């Protein structure tokens, strides 16, 4: 006879397990409240009901990822053969720990897998979006500012990638066959060179007349860049701190590849709009360099729409990662990410309808949180 919790006990148990998350959420909220004057548009966010809802959902998943080990009740990979496809609330007899959301086909605890799954998404989605943004900004600024041939060639390439359905792209780029070749490393080495170029250009354009400040910065950037680059792209970090699995690198490269053309188009459009403003003309008259104008005059003034787009794009990347998991592309089969979980459990709906719920609702709620956050930010930035 297996003991189960009733519905009320189950939800109370779940709510209690998330205690570190609630605590950190309350802390962050109060901190934001007290510092709202300094936070700019993020401070205004607290006035909008939509924005605050989105922010809290995003905080929830962020802190779940941070405290996944504390929140989860079991090891996400541990299999209990006696407890396969059990309904929510079943209690594991040996440890007397409840399996809040039931178990999957291999007897793994769905609650723990869902909590640990947030780690993969919250690590890859924002960082891939960040890299995509840096690639898009580094190429979009000159395309929009200079126009001409640079613009035609870059826009042609961007439109070409965009006219490719994402799913075909993934089936071509995220396969075991591709991982046997050097293609993912080539792609990653191209994408990850952009942050270094970007940082160097930022420093060079700012301190071009103060070499005493410029050279130390350049040295720091080069050392840091080389260290991160060797770790991420070639999995050969001399200190052994940073490593990336070949399949994670493959996914990362494919996701950056799929989303940077979109960023490029937005940055290009914004640049074309902003370059007609008076302050840009003033900078041109002062004789500032082109890159100074692009990075220190145009980019800061384009930040509003870009922040909103970044929120939406993290959500979109989350959906893309889910799509990859759903098609079983690129990830290790036991990996507890939400997309793979959906793929593994969707065949069992007839046997146990609740088996698909945790991971589907987790994914949808995180994306919803990001979309609401973007809506709130857009609303508040329009008010200024």
């Amino acid at each position, binding site marked *: 006879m297996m003991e189960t919790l009733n519905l009320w006990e189950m939800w109370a148990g779940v709510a209690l397990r998330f205690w570190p998350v609630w605590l950190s959420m309350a802390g962050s909220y109060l901190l934001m409240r007290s510092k709202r004057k300094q936070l700019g548009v993020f401070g205004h966010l607290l006035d909008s009901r939509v924005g605050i809802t989105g922010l809290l959902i995003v905080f929830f998943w962020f802190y779940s990822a941070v405290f996944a080990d504390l929140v989860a009740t079991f090891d996400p990979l541990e299999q209990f053969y006696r407890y396969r496809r059990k309904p929510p609330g079943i209690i594991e007899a040996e440890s007397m720990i409840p399996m809040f959301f039931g178990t999957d086909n291999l007897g793994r605890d769905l609650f723990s897998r869902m909590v640990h799954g947030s780690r993969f998404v919250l690590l890859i989605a924002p960082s891939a979006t960040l890299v995509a943004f840096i690639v898009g900004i580094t190429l979009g600024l000159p395309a929009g500012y200079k126009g001409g041939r640079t613009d035609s060639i870059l826009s*042609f390439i961007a*439109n*070409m990638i*965009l*006219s*490719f*359905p*994402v*799913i*075909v792209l993934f*089936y*071509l*780029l995220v*396969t*075991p*066959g*591709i991982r*046997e*070749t050097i*293609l993912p490393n080539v792609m990653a080495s191209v994408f990850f060179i952009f942050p270094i170029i970007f940082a160097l250009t930022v420093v060079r354009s700012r301190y071009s007349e103060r070499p005493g400040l410029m050279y130390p910065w350049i040295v720091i950037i080069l050392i840091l860049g080389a260290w991160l680059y060797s770790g991420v792209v070639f999995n050969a970090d001399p200190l052994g701190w940073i490593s990336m699995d070949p399949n994670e690198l493959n996914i990362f490269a494919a996701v950056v590849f799929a989303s940077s053309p979109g960023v490029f188009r937005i940055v290009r459009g914004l640049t074309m709009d902003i370059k007609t403003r008076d302050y840009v003309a003033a900078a041109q008259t002062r004789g500032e360099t082109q890159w100074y104008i692009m990075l220190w005059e145009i980019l800061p003034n384009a930040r509003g729409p870009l922040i909103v787009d970044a929120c939406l794009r993290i*959500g979109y990347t989350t*959906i893309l990662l*889910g*799509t990859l998991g*759903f*098609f079983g592309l690129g990830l290790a089969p036991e990996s507890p990410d939400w*997309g793979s979980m*959906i793929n593994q459990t*969707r065949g069992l*709906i*007839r046997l146990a*309808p609740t088996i*698909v*719920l945790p991971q*589907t*609702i987790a*994914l*949808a709620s995180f*994306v*919803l949180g*990001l*979309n*609401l956050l973007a*809506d709130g930010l857009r609303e508040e930035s329009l008010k200024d």
Partner: protein
Amino acid sequence: MLGFIIKRTLIMMLTMLALSLVVFTLVNLEPNLRKLALEQNNNRMGQEAVDSWLDKNGYRRPFVVRYGEWLTGVISGDLGYSTRFRMPVNEALPKRLGYTGILAFWVLMTMVPSALLIGILSGMKEGSVVDRILSIVSVTTTATPEYVSGILFTVIFASLLGWFKGVANVNNITFENFTLPVLTMSIYGMGYIARMTRASMSEVMTSQYIRTAHLKGLPFRTVVLKHALRNALIAPFTVILLQFPWLLTGVVIVEKIFNYKGFGWVLVEAAENNDINLLLACSLVSVVVVIGTQLISDVGYAYLNPRIRVEP
């Protein structure tokens, strides 16, 4: 106008050529060829046997020759032989495309009118209760990808309520088994189109000529239907057409969830079985669909909106 269309068509051809080259390179990478050889014969083949099989079937010829051969084949209408279905691609693909065409037709028939309606209703009076509720609905639908909503719908409507069937059949399309795939696909795309329509509608509603129409004493209905809609629907028109890349990805996901054996199913089969010619053909079809709709949207936008100047 004609010059504009010709220029766009030329760019489109160039894009397709470049993409076909990229896809051809990717599907013909060494590991893929090796896997194809293993799948077509017995899986325990040695390295030498793999090499000789590839050699015998012409996969070892220079890349340029093979690409040229494929390209001339495509231009003359021959897409090659599908190793997965063991028949020419020209026989395997059109039938499946037809099935997906039926799905896409019904998706558009449900998605577009309801999205426009939601967008118009919420854009008509910005900030009203209706607007707030509909905005939340459309944000929620854009946040729910097909593989989430499809599964949730199956749980609710097929497992718990038993109204519809969770599996669709291409040979026997009924209301019962076709509702969920159509619903799943239209709901995801709907939110985005509705938001675009809302933005466009609310912008039009604040413009001067609408104010004039109000002040002339025209009833609200007439102002919306006769004056606002015409201009408000230009932007959604392009958005709907630009949704096609998403629609294609959605087709693949939905066909997989509901086991509807159309184009998306073929694409997955081709990719998972290293069927080079079929995968190339599928990519070609998707690119043609996407770029074709882009062309229509560009031309249509220029035609509908006289303020856009066409540069030949």
